């Protein structure tokens, strides 16, 4: 071991100064030679107007009839609303022009030609704009919500072009009776047990409306039987563990004039499904059915007939389709594994016709079945441009 002597070698460090300067100059030179990173704000990016190409990113699909279908396609940098009138052979871009957001779209489909789209923004706590159409997307009427909209399914519902309801991101339900010019808060009475955070609003008839969302320890919703003028809480079941998270889908009408909904409860590593039906005047359901762990998508055509698509958590796994014809009391495996990937969406078009979205890697493809889920086929979605839709009577 040695230490400093008469000529301390520490002084030699002074000689490093020019070396350091040279090294730093090399750094500067190196950095200056690096390619300049392209940094462009979102609004200056050229819009993706590519049409006629195969789309492998489908966020949501809904077929209100066998011929008419709507979908949300998150093409970069802006999301599109597309519609088909021939059962999926040709999809047309019907996005209302002059609208965009950096948080995607939420689409509420109420009929073959009727839909409402909400433009969501997450970067700023800003109001969400919306637009609705009753002619298949040729003409849109646009408006603005009083705050950012819920990111849940069906955040807005138009009872008619003047009377509309929406659920905001903070769980507040608002209504407008003048086409969206002014909005007022809707009072939802508190639940006696458990708690629910509204995400969706839906009407099964001109007078019967429902507010659903995510509940804790209870399956509950709010119901209006006077076209949304007043709302009452309805507890479908309180037989859940206090920590169970229960997600209710917006109710659908039954042929008998009632409504039914499905509740998926999550607690720990298992999920359970119950189908609730109020055809008898009060909510009733078959016992809960345990769902397999993994990604589960549920869709019911009516209270009795429904499908569950289950894809295990493993990447690129094969999905299984289960079918029930007795409110979920018994389930049968409907198909051998045919759907590749994680199932993200399911829509029952008719008893024989099913549409599903499945994600493999970064792509979400459309799969269809025309034999009640026995066989599945990957279906190509090709977007075509069309006449530019009008918004508030204005063409871009």
């Amino acid at each position, binding site marked *: *071991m*040695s*230490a400093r*002597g008469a000529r301390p*070698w520490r002084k*030699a*460090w002074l*000689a490093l100064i020019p070396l350091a300067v040279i*090294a*730093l100059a090399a*750094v*500067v030179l190196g*950095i200056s030679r*690096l*390619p300049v*990173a*392209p*940094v462009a*704000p979102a*609004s*200056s990016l050229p*819009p*993706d*107007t590519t049409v006629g190409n195969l789309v492998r990113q489908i*966020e*949501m699909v809904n077929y209100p009839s066998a011929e008419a279908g709507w979908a*949300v396609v998150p093409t970069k940098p802006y999301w*599109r609303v597309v519609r088909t009138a021939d059962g999926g052979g040709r999809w047309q871009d019907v*996005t209302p*022009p002059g*609208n*965009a*957001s*950096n948080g*995607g779209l939420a689409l509420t489909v109420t009929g073959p030609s009727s839909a409402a789209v909400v433009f*969501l*923004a997450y*970067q*700023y*706590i*800003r109001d969400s*704009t919306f637009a609705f159409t009753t002619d298949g997307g040729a003409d849109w009427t*646009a*408006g*603005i919500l009083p705050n950012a909209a819920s*990111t849940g399914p069906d955040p807005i519902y138009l009872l008619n072009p003047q009377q509309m309801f929406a659920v905001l991101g*903070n*769980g507040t339900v608002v209504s407008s009776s003048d086409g969206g010019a002014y909005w007022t808060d809707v009072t939802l009475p*508190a639940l006696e047990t458990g708690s*629910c*955070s509204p995400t969706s609003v839906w009407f099964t008839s001109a007078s019967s409306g429902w507010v659903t969302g*995510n509940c*804790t320890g209870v399956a509950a919703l709010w119901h209006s039987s006077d076209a949304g003028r007043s709302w009452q809480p309805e507890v479908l079941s309180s037989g859940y563990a206090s*920590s169970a*998270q229960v997600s209710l889908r917006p109710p659908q009408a039954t042929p008998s004039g009632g409504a039914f909904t499905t509740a998926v409860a*999550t607690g720990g590593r298992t999920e359970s499904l119950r189908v609730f039906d109020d055809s008898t005047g009060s909510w009733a359901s078959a016992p809960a059915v345990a769902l397999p762990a993994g990604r589960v998508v549920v869709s019911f055509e009516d209270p009795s007939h429904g499908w569950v698509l289950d894809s295990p958590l493993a990447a690129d796994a094969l999905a299984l389709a289960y079918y029930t014809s007795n409110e979920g009391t018994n389930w049968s495996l409907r198909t051998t594994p045919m759907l590749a990937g994680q199932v993200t969406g399911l829509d029952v078009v008719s008893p024989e016709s099913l549409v599903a979205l499945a994600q493999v890697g970064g792509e979400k493809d459309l799969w269809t079945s025309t034999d009640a889920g026995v066989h599945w086929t990957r279906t190509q979605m090709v977007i075509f441009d069309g006449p530019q839709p009008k*918004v*508030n009577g*204005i063409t*871009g």
Partner: protein
Amino acid sequence: MPGMGSYGTETIGGFYPYLFIDLLIIVALVWVCWGVGVGFRYLDEREGHLVDRSSAAAPSPVPRIPARLFLRWAIGIIWIVDGLLQAQPAMPGGFAKNVVQPLAAGQPHLLANLLNWEVYFWQAHPLDLAVATVFIQVGLGVAILAGGDSAIGKFGLWASIAWGLFVWVGGEALGNVLASGATELMGAPGAVLVYVAAAALLLAPRRIWEGGRAYRVMRIGVGSVLLFGALLQAIPSEGFWTGRGLSAMFLAMGHVPQPGFLSRPVIAVAHLAQSQPIVLNSVFIAVMAVIGIGLISGRVPRRWTIAALVWLGIAWWIGQDFGALGSKTATDPNLSPLLAVMLICAWRGTQAQPAVSPVAEVQVRSAGLRRTVALGGVLALGVALVPVLLGLPVAAAQSATIEALNTGGGLDPVSNQSLPDLTLVNQAGRTVDLRQWSDKAVVFTFLDPVCYYQCPIMAEQLAAADHQLGALAKNVEFVAVVANPIYRSRSEVRAFDATMQMNRLPNWQYLTGSLPQLERVWSAFSLPIEIPRLQMVDHPTVLYFVKPGGNEVSLAQDAALSQASVITSYATLIDEQLRSIINQ
């Protein structure tokens, strides 16, 4: 699910090659320094200048204080973790937009302008600054860890204080305490303040550690933070007494991408907050106040330390969401872990463990390696700072606005034109004539009420200019005309005013009208307005300055504003121009 956006996932190519190049440079510099040192030592030995250490009077080793060592290691490691978090792929493209820009909302104008400027600077040099931040923070950690009590270690601690304060202002907006909605649950008054306090304690004389005062200071500090948190939680204007206000933070945390088992309790608390805000907020206040007072009192410190650690754990989960590590632009583990480190350090220090004397031989043998590693940390700081220092003037030169401010120009004169004689309706529903403010100076512009991009920034700058004018503001009218043929209703105008808080300005006019009325105004100003197929309505950003009497005197049409994502001190430009008009 429709509407689920991504959280700043855009990446910028070249980030990791750039990091790698800088790493190579730092390693090369360390190697050169080490080699030169060995070379000089060889020359000294050959010339007989060295003496045998065993014959020299070796300094007696200083006893180590375990708690102090623990704090040094904790802070050093956390700085390195912070540095590695800055190396996430989304950081160059997402830090300014997702971390800094949201902080600017609701801040005092001075701080908001500073943050806006920072965002602009980052957007102009995302790679340089992202790489610099990685190496600065990793360098700080390495220098603190390997430098020990040497000059390099002390340099690391001083640099830690300086950088910490810089981050506290520029990265945490003073812990967000000046904006509404600040809460200890989410990290106010700022995690980085704890870094600063820890570095200051490590730089403090050893006697305050040996005498135990350091541990008392730590407990009082943590207790004070909790008491401050209770105070913030109780202030009505912070909004935590309402279900909407209290649940907002939990909802925000619950929606950060993360495994479901982590988010579910957060969402559950959000639901509870919505239904029982007064009860839940009272519990929060009581818990923080009681634990804070307990820690400050110094009585039964072990009990209060355990209680505080439990609370910090809860807050870290439900309020800070484990530092939002799933957000892809997380910058640090947030406040709770830092406060926990201080409490654990104080606990260890009061366990009456004897100071450990290092084995002299091991210290000597590892000294060279430690010195080299510490040197690497300091060199990382230096290498990282170079592009930052070089970038400052470059950024300034690139900003037309800053250039305009520096030169006092940037405005194009408009010769002897006047506002058109047209009428519109203001936000209150009153019909107004564009010429009716002829006794005032007028700032005239066009804003889109549903634009989420540049128009909100311009509105903020107009409000800031109004504030800067002070008493002179009564001589000025700020007038904006709707620049959107689709969204032009009075309710949409009022919604914009409410969101941007423009309705607080008594001299603010946001005008709209029927489409033909608006088109006449747009035509009078030759304002092209386009409705793109897939994006929001496009319109140029212009500002007209009209002197009293109705004649336009100048037009600001800032290309930088149209292209850049944010703008810096535009308010100052407006303020200066108005003062010159009024004083003419």
